[in-house]
């Protein structure tokens, strides 16, 4: 039995009256590459935002390596408004902030690239290394962190090299071409030394060749860094070619789970995607 890294139990995320993620339960096991797919607006990125602590789920529990990161039950104003299920199942309110979750070992990339625009590529990656800094702020101010800084730079350069960005290491991030910005997002996430890497549409805007390269890259990332990868993606070639398992959600609800072959033949999935096409 593979050890499970990430576990979502009955996670519901409701904004006012809108239920964006509805009773979502899933498990990601160590070393797997898992994809989360679904039509636009199905709640995929919202699910990611819940996992990384950006949003506070309205109900449910999310745990990482067996430790509860987030747990919530409808309370306060939400008590009346709550439209999901399993309202009584959870009782505790635990909320770790995004930075703590990252420190626990989950790093992510963003769908709508969010780099530190005025900083160089190297500096972007160094920011992710910052949480490992041991020199205190007063010592840094007195210039006593030079050694650690040098080591950090070396390490950061390794991630940059791995992602093929060494030529542009001193460029300002905002000036990079789109594809390189996507690569930098991944380099930066890797520098946080995660055990679980969340990729939010890493292939968005890429052509088929680039997508194929990315597929190879994601595999290499998993193998070299001993990671588990959980990604949201729309490119079906990439999803079907690389995933060990796939979760499909629609209107915030899980509609299928299985291997790529199973998913391709799943009538509910076909209906969700084709139904969309028919309407269009």
């Amino acid at each position, binding site marked *: 039995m593979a050890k499970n890294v990430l576990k979502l139990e009955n996670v519901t995320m409701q904004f006012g009256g809108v239920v964006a993620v509805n009773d979502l339960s899933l498990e990601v096991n160590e070393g797997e590459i898992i994809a989360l797919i679904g039509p636009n607006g199905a709640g995929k990125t919202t699910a990611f935002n819940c996992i990384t602590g950006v949003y506070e789920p309205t109900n449910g529990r999310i745990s990482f390596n067996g430790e509860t990161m987030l747990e919530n039950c409808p309370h306060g104003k939400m008590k009346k408004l709550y439209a999901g299920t399993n309202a009584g199942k959870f009782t505790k309110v635990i909320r770790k*902030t995004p930075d703590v979750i990252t420190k626990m070992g989950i790093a*992510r990339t*963003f769908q709508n690239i969010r780099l530190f625009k005025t900083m160089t590529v190297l500096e972007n990656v*160094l920011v992710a290394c910052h949480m490992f800094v041991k020199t205190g702020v007063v010592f840094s101010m*007195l210039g006593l962190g030079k050694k650690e800084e040098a080591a950090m730079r070396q390490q950061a350069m390794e991630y940059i090299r791995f992602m093929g960005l060494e030529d542009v290491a001193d460029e300002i991030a905002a000036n990079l071409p789109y594809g390189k910005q996507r690569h930098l997002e991944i380099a930066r996430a890797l520098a946080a030394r995660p055990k679980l890497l969340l990729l939010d549409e890493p292939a968005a805007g890429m052509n088929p060749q680039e997508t194929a390269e990315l597929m190879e890259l994601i595999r290499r990332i998993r193998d070299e860094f001993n990671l588990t990868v959980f990604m949201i993606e729309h490119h079906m070639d990439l999803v079907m070619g690389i995933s060990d398992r796939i979760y499909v959600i629609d209107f915030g609800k899980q509609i299928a789970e299985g291997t790529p072959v199973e998913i391709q033949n799943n009538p509910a999935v076909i209906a969700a995607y084709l139904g969309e096409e028919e309407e269009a």
Partner: protein
Amino acid sequence: MSKKKKNIINICLLAALFVVLFVLEQTLSGGSMLLTVLKKGAIYALIACSMNLLNGFTGLFSLGQAGFMLLGAYTYAIFTIPVEARADVYQYFDGGIIQFTLPVIVAIILAGIVAALFASLIGMPVLRLKSDYLAIATLGFAEIIRAFMMFEGLGPITNGSNLLKKFPTFSTILFPFAVAGVCIALIVMLINSSYGRAFKAIRDDEVAAEAMGVNLFKHKQTAFVISSFFAGIGGALLAMYQSTVQANAFKSAMTYEILLIVVIGGIGSITGSILASFLYIASSEWWLRFLDETAFIGSFQVPLLRSGFRMVVFSIIIMVIVLFYRQGIMGTREYSLDALLRFFKNLPAKIKSIGKKKKGEDAAASEEVQ
């Protein structure tokens, strides 16, 4: 040029600066405008840098600087007024309750610490607020601090709304330069450290910074406390420069003034803040003084020139910078020896090209006329 060589040249330049300052002080009379400007400019440079650390590098729009300067100035003054002078200074409060003095340097550091301490208390609630709410809350805190300092109930310590005076001032111009220089060097080191990068990351994108493991609150708090620490020291120096302090002078207008210096220099450039401080003080205290005096050319009185005109011209210049040169003098660039050398190398060419451009424009204009 090797890094070592550059360092040596930079150190030489710095030493030369101090020698020049020393010579100036020995040769010029005490009332010289140049010395006044240099003294006040150095102090403002430190305060502007401390504000830039917060507003420019961490992206926190805070308007509490005057409050922290006030705390620094008062802490310094209260603990350094000689015991024998206290009866006179605190004449309405029986000589006050503090009957000891601290050495000047200790008092200056204490001034920073008191400001930092208050900042850490204030930071807890306000740093969670979003940009403009933060601005107004910090502005409010500065006003509250001012009210407390003027409160007669605290008179035995703060002398209420009366002046504090007779505390030691500096005897040489080298003193404010040395203190401000050390403090600015510390700020620069901080900005160039990993913490400085985390601050900039917060400024660029809070959500991404947090997702990269940067504890937002802790880092904002750190920037806020350190900035206030140096504002406190700046306040102490300002008290020494003025030789008297009164809480009433530390109004929000003072914060605005420093903010405008930061903007003129370039938000996010320490070099810019330093240059702008000297420029600002020089223009407001010296170069533009003539605008305040009625002048005659022959028997013709030059219009507009009278008391107050200087500040009007000055605020118009500031508005022009804010509206049309939003980058300020330096943008986000910093001093480096290479850049300085390049600047001087290109200077003749630049002047020439400006001349040419003018000629070209004239030619174009005359063509158009034809």
